[in-house]
C-alpha cells in the first residue's frame, strides 16, 4: 500500500472512528498514532463518504451554538484538525499496552507528536475557532475507559479499553467465567499515569492553553494564569463572555469567584500586562459578579473565609458603581437588588480589596481608552 493510501486510511479511521463518534456521543475508537507529518494530508483530506464530514460539521456547529451564536465555523481548518489530532494522541498515550518492551520507546516520540501538533496550533482568533476547539476538547475530557477483568477457573485476563474477544468468554458455565467491569474517566487516568517519562498533565496543560474557553470552564485543571494573551480575543467578545458565565454559573460561587480574583490579581501584578487584557478580564469578572447578584436568590457568603482574592472579585461591582468605570456594562443593569447586593459584598470584603478593585478598574479603562485611541 502506498504512503498516500495509508495516510488516507488513517484519516478515514480518525474521522469516522474518533471525531464523528466523539461529537455524536457514541463509543470512540482510537486509531494509530498521528504524527505531525500527516497534518498536511489531514488538512485537505475528505472522507470517502461525504456524509461523515457533513455530520461532523453539523454536530460541531450545533454543539458550538449552545455556548454562543455562531454564524460560520472555520472547519475543516488546519489548526482545528491539528488540535483534534493532538487530543487523539494524548488519549492514546494512556494505553497500558504501550508499556511493553518494544513499544515503550514509542512513548517519547508520541509525546513529541503531541507537542509538534500543538506547535502547529496558535491561539484562536475568532469566535468559531474558540468554540470548535472547546467542543472537541470538552467532550474528549469527559471520555471514559472501560476496564474489564475476565476470570475463569484457571486464568485471569485484563482488557483495559479493549473489547473482550469472544473465545475468552465462551462456554461461561463450563469454564466458570466471571467478568468485572470498572470505568475510569480520562482525567483519573491522567493523574494516575502522570510521571516524568509520561508528562500527561503538562501535555494536558498545553492542550488547554490552545483552547482558552475549555481552560476557563475547567479552571481546576490548569495552574497556569487563566488570563493571558491567548484569551484576549475571547474575553473581548461579549457573546463568548456570556457563554462562559452560563457555564460557570452552576458551579460553587465562592470557588469560582476566588479563582477569578486570584487570576485578576496575578494580572494586576504582571508589569507588562496590556491594558486591553486587563480591561477585558475585569469586565468578565464584573459581569460574572453581576450575573450572580441578579439571580433570584443571590448567593449568601456567610461562613466563607474572606480571602483577599475573593474580596477583590466581589468588590468589583461596588467599585464600578463608585468610580463609574466600565460604564457600558453597568448601564445594562439598573436593578436595585444588584446595587444593594454589590454594596453588601463590598462591606463584607472590607476596604483593602475595594481599593484595589477601584485601582484595577481605573487602570483598565484608562489604558484601554488610550490603546483604542492609538
Amino acid at each position: 500500500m502506498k504512503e498516500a493510501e495509508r495516510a488516507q486510511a488513517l484519516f478515514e479511521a480518525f474521522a469516522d472512528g474518533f471525531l464523528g463518534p466523539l461529537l455524536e456521543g457514541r463509543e470512540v475508537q482510537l486509531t494509530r498514532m498521528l504524527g505531525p507529518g500527516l497534518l498536511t494530508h489531514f488538512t485537505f483530506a475528505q472522507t470517502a463518504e461525504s456524509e461523515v464530514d457533513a455530520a461532523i460539521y453539523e454536530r460541531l456547529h450545533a454543539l458550538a451554538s449552545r455556548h454562543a451564536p455562531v454564524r460560520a465555523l472555520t472547519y475543516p481548518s488546519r489548526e482545528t484538525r491539528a488540535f483534534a489530532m493532538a487530543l487523539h494522541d494524548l488519549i492514546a498515550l494512556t494505553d497500558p499496552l504501550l508499556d511493553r518492551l518494544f513499544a515503550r520507546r514509542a512513548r517519547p516520540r508520541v509525546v513529541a507528536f503531541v507537542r509538534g501538533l500543538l506547535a502547529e496550533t496558535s491561539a484562536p482568533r475568532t469566535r468559531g475557532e474558540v468554540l470548535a476547539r472547546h467542543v472537541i476538547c470538552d467532550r474528549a475530557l469527559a471520555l471514559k475507559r472501560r476496564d474489564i477483568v475476565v476470570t475463569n477457573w484457571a486464568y485471569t485476563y485484563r482488557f483495559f479499553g479493549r473489547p473482550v474477544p469472544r473465545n475468552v468468554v465462551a462456554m461461561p458455565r463450563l469454564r466458570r467465567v466471571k467478568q468485572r467491569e470498572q470505568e475510569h474517566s480520562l482525567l483519573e487516568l491522567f493523574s494516575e499515569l502522570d510521571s516524568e517519562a509520561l508528562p500527561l498533565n503538562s501535555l494536558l496543560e498545553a492542550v488547554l492553553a490552545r483552547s482558552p474557553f475549555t481552560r476557563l470552564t475547567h479552571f481546576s485543571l490548569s495552574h497556569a494564569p487563566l488570563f493571558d494573551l491567548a484569551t484576549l480575543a475571547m474575553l473581548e467578545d461579549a457573546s463568548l463572555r456570556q457563554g462562559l458565565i452560563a457555564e460557570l454559573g452552576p458551579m460553587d460561587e465562592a470557588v469560582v469567584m476566588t479563582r477569578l480574583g486570584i487570576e485578576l490579581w496575578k494580572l494586576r501584578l504582571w508589569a507588562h500586562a496590556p491594558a486591553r487584557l486587563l480591561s477585558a478580564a475585569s469586565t468578565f469578572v464584573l459581569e460574572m459578579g453581576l450575573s450572580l447578584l441578579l439571580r433570584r436568590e443571590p448567593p449568601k457568603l456567610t461562613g466563607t473565609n474572606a480571602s483577599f482574592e475573593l474580596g477583590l472579585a466581589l468588590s468589583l461591582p461596588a467599585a464600578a458603581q463608585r468610580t463609574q468605570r466600565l460604564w457600558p456594562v453597568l448601564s445594562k443593569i439598573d436593578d436595585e437588588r444588584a446595587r444593594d447586593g454589590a454594596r453588601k459584598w463590598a462591606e463584607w470584603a472590607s476596604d483593602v480589596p475595594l481599593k484595589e478593585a477601584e485601582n484595577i478598574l481605573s487602570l483598565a479603562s484608562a489604558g484601554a481608552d488610550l490603546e483604542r485611541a492609538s
Partner: protein
Amino acid sequence: MTPDARGVLLGDRGLLLFPSLDRLVAFLRAYAEQDSLDELLVSLKIRQLVTPLKTREAMLSCTAESSYRMDKLASVARLSGGLCFTGTSRHFVRYRDAASPLGYDVAELAQEAADLIVYDQAYQQSYSFERDLDLRALLLRLDPVPTAANRREAPPRLFVTAETGVGGAITGYLFRWGVDAKVALAEWPPESAFDDRGTRLYVFDITSPPARITTLLASLPGVKVYAPDGPNVAVELGFHHPVSLTSCQSLFSTNSLTLLPSRGDARQIAPLPAFAPVESLVRADISQDGKPRARMGKPSKRVLEAALPLRLAPSSDAWRNVVATIVPSSQIDWLARMVYALPSDALRSLRIAFGEGGEVYLHDPNGIEGVPLGEFASEVAPRIYVPAGFSLVPAVSSDVLLGLLKDRGDAHIFFTHGAAEPSRVPDQAFREATRALLHEISTRVVSAAAPQQEPPLGLFDYAEARRLPLFALPGVKESASESAEGDEAEK
C-alpha cells in the same frame, strides 16, 4: 489543467469511458434517476471508440464546469462500471479519487497520432473515434420495460391511437360518456415501396379518463393506450422507459408528440395535427328537404296565469346524492350513542344543525349513509333536498327550482312530508358535529421534565495492539534501530 476553488485539478471537459454501450446506458439510467440530463445536453457528446487493437468502447464527454458536477458524474460512472477522466483537447487524465483527493496530472504528454489519449496511474491508452451516437436515437432504440403492478398509477391524461376502422366508434363512445377528449388524425408515409399507402391513425388526447374506460380501451384490438412521460412524449400504458424521460425533455421538441409502444418502433407525430373536441365530430342529423324545422309562432294575446304548488311524489329512480338526514327529537338519544360508534372519516365531514322543533339536521357532503337514523334526503339541486325515494312534481329542472327560490340566500331548503312549506335552515346554523356535540376538555397539570437531550458521552477503545506502534506509520520517519527491530519482528 487548473485547480478549482477547492484545489481539485480540472480540465475543460470531463470524459467517462465505458467498456460497452450497455454500461453507458446503465450510466444514463442511473444518472437520470437522480439528476437532470438536460443540464448535460448542451455540451454532451457520445462516441464509439476503437483502440489500435480494434477493441470497441464507448465514451461520454461534457464540459467539466465544476468539481461538484464531476464528483457526481464520477460516482455514478464508477457505479455503472465506467472510468472518469478530465482534460482538455485530446489529452485526458484520471479524475480524482480517494487515494488522491486533489486529482492527478501527467509529467509529459504523449505524442502519438490519435483522436483521444487517456492517462491512468498504470497505463496510457490511445483511441480513434469510430462514430458519433445521437442520444435521442439511442433513447428511442431502447424498448420500454413493464411497470410492476404495485407501482402502476392511474394517469391523469392519456393518449390513445386507434385504427381508422374503430376511430369513429370510439369518438362516439367518448362523447356519450361525457369524457373530456380531443381527437386528431395523424398520417405517416409508407415504410417501403411495397406498401400501397401510408399509415393513418386516430390520436385521442383524453383528460381525466375514468378507470373503466382506460381498461376498456387498453383491451380493444387496434387500439393502443399511452401514458404521458413529460409534455411531448408518452409510453404505452403499463410500461415505462428505462431512462427517466422527464429528465431529458429538451430532446423532444414542443410541437411534436413521440409515442413509444412496448414493441416496435417509436412513432413521432411532428408537427402536431389539429385536435378537435369529440363533441364536434359526432354525427348530426340534417334534414335534406331544405325546409327549416322551426315553425314560426305568433305571440298570444291571452295572458296565462296559474300558481301550481310543488308536490312530492314517490319515485322509482335509484337514490342519488343522499347527503342529509332529518332526525326527529325522539331519536336524539340514539344519535348520541351512534356518534360514539362512527368512524373518524364519517365524523370529520359530518355537520349538524338543531331545529326549533327539536329535530336535528345532519349534512355530510360525502354521503349520509354512515348515520342510519331519521329521514334521508337527496340533494336535487344545490342545497335543496327532498326525501329519498321521492321526487318533486312537476319534474322541474334544477335551474328552474333555483329560480323559484330566489330569496333563500345561503340557506338549505328541506322539502318534507306533510308540511305545506319546505323548511329553511341557514348555513350558519350548521356546525361540525364533533364540535357541537362534545364538551370542552379540561386538563390536569402533570409535572414532567424533558428527557435528557444530550446522549451520554461514549467510552473510548484503543486501536489494535501492535508490538511496534510506530512501525510503518505514514508521515513518520523511522529511525534505523526501529526499522531493524521491525525486520526482526517480521522474521
